[in-house]
């Protein structure tokens, strides 16, 4: 089992530093709307949820990608997107229950978090420990299930919205 990005929304203050660092690392610019993770903030309820690819055990994006551009590494289980093959059709964005794939509004291309080759910049700069990068033991699995339930119950489905900006997450009451 390899490492996963573990999210604890209770510790997230909504500072957006992770998204700034991500865009600086991946795009050499400070532009959170291009980051490969998001923070969804319900400002009237105090709920702040970082949203990033969860490397699902059975990733629906892999199954749905018409170009076979998304694959799951057999050994590590990490879900990867091959930018060469990806046509940015955004089907993965529509089917992902966790808001993993993002649309870069500048390049108009779809991206997935790639763990920065084993050392995610977002995790190392998170000031509160709301993001962690670790192998999942029993406790971490429980936490992850709790997080996923929260995400599923309260957000989620990244829709294909033509407009630029920060993309959007569809609330699914189901």
């Amino acid at each position, binding site marked *: 089992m390899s490492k996963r990005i573990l999210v604890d929304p*209770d*510790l997230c*203050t*909504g*500072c*957006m*530093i992770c998204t*700034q*660092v991500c*865009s*600086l*690392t991946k*795009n*050499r*610019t*400070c*532009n*959170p*709307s*291009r980051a490969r993770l*998001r*923070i*969804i*903030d*319900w*400002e*009237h*309820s*105090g709920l*702040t949820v970082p949203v990033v690819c969860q490397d699902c055990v059975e990733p629906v994006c892999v199954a749905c990608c018409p170009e076979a551009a998304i694959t799951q590494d057999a050994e590590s289980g990490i879900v990867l997107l091959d930018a060469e093959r990806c046509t940015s059709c955004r089907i993965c964005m529509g089917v992902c229950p966790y808001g993993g794939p993002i649309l870069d*509004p*500048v390049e108009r291309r779809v991206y997935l978090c790639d763990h920065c080759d084993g050392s995610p910049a977002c995790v190392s*700069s998170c*000031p*509160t420990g709301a993001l962690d990068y670790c192998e999942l033991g029993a406790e971490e699995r429980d936490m992850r299930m709790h997080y996923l339930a929260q995400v599923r119950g309260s*957000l989620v489905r990244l*829709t294909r*919205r033509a*407009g*630029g*900006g*920060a*993309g*959007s*997450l*569809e*609330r699914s009451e189901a």
Partner: protein
Amino acid sequence: MSASQGWSGKLLWVDLTTGHHEVQTLSEDWARTYVGARGFGIRLLYDLTGPETEPLGADNVIIIAAGPLTGTLSPSSSRCEVISKSPLTGIYGRADVGGAFGAKMKYAGYDAIIVRGQAEHPTYLWIEDEKVILVDARHLWGKDVWQSRQAICDDHRAGSNSAAFLNSIGTLGIGPAGEHLSLAACVMDGVAHAAGLGGLGAVWGSKGLKAVAVRGSRGIDLARPEEFTRLCQTQWTRYQGDPMYESTRKWGTLGWVGGSDSRSAISDMMLGGRMEGIEEDAFVPLIEKSRTCYGCQIHCDHFLHVKDGKYKGTKGEGVEGWVQIQGLSFKTPSAPFLARYNNLCNQLGLNVASVGNAIIWAMELWKQGIIDASDTGGVEITEGNEEAILALTRQIAYRDGFGDVLADHPVAGARKLGRGSERYAAHTKGQSAWVPGHGIGITLIYTLSLNVNTRGYDHLMGGMSILTPDLREEWGITRELLTRLGEQRYGDPAIFRDNAWSYHPLIVQAECDFEHMMVMADMVGTCKFATQYNQPVEGIDLPEWSDFLSAATGEDFTTTDLQSAAQRTIALERSYNAREGMRRVDDYPFFLWWEKKLGEPHPLYKTSEVPFTLEEYDRILDEWYEMRGYDLRTGIATRDELTRCGLEDVADDLATRGIVLG
């Protein structure tokens, strides 16, 4: 050459009268000279307004300006400035705010937005990168700040999820207080961050501008992104070594009030006397989690939730130590009540400090028998009356009943009421001060700083409150540490260790250095909590900013450049005020101002009862003027000083208007 790294590179000019807008390229020279935010703001305000400008007329301007570090990864850099000629003080009106607006404005490509004219009907400004439109806001007029932000979101989200779309837009706007031209009105960023002082919300109301909303996808380009990221990481690590860092992260300003002796010293500072009934950690049961402004690793803010009792269901953020101190003055220290009161101010778009000062004034008048129920429409303004406080807060926003007097606190309100009420309406340059404190701080230098402030009474000019012995002893600001810092920085072990009511020959030098740091924070867009204002050992100061700015903009900024830029900003602000008639007398604490202005001692507050003499204050003020290059008699920047600052045009302008420059 245009400035487009660090800076976004464009200024947006909007005319509400004609409905036109124009985009101006930010020139490199101008950007370098005035740096950003507060520096841009005062230069534009000086050029666009003057003594002939009616603050609530079409000629006044609204300037929203961010700094070159705003919205970047630089620590705690979310700040932007909201600047107009103030309808409250009639002078330079400036308020700055964290939240997320400044960052989002820059992501859309603008360093500043300048709004002129007056709209025919309520209007809001919608900006999405290059798209700039004025939208009819008649459906928003009358709505509170929270409803109005949501309604703007609903106008544009076109089927997108509400929370996610809300996250992507920044809003600055007013509530009913600004619409009703209450001088306690602020401009709210999002739902809980306020550009508070100066009554600037009323300027927005007078122009019919309900809000500015912005959504940006362009981001900010940096000259040397890897170096910039490294500098940020180094600074984050450095903070871990500061004695104030963890406590600030845990408590924010709420921790300044608490129960132990050293923490309640803050109430000395604010109130001029120690308060009874401080409940240590009163807010702890309500805190659900820490919250933060954009890009801030400190997260001093808290999300509160009242789960039971009379105020059950109150949820919101932004309660500051100020509010807790007000609770002590009101004799209503209950945290659930204060959470409700704070939310009410945020929703109505009221500056909580102005409201609190006005109500404390009214309570004093009630106690003295100067007003009674026949003045207040039956509201009993007695200490501890929570209902009365909430009722008055609403009245201040809508200028209802007695609220019409309180909305003009301190100067115009007292004038309207008469009956000697002005004796209790403490202020400096028209900006209200806490009544019991009357503009006096914890130390001599802090008192100076409160009163020479260019926007009137306020603690954020300088003051070095963190470098005061015995104030935050339990948080690690020990006498030993102050001794060490004094030795390191000024070669004098006593300068901070003995910083109190006695005079120290180096203290004014230290204060001026401190002021440069405070002003530069407002110019680059960094929160003062990330600076040595609150992190006295490892906080950011000019040398760190020169590195950050150089890596961000590609321009070479030295510490000396930044010092000159801060000095230029202060001189320009003082000149703006001089043009509006401010003189030396306006740099004194309230009771001394009274004595000097009216030629008679203040009837309630005796010079003999304060811990310093008039001579001591005079001397330190003289020395501050001398250090800054201002005329001792008038307090106005001399021609030499203005020339040093590259402000010859300002010197000429003042001279043309018959203002004598030393």
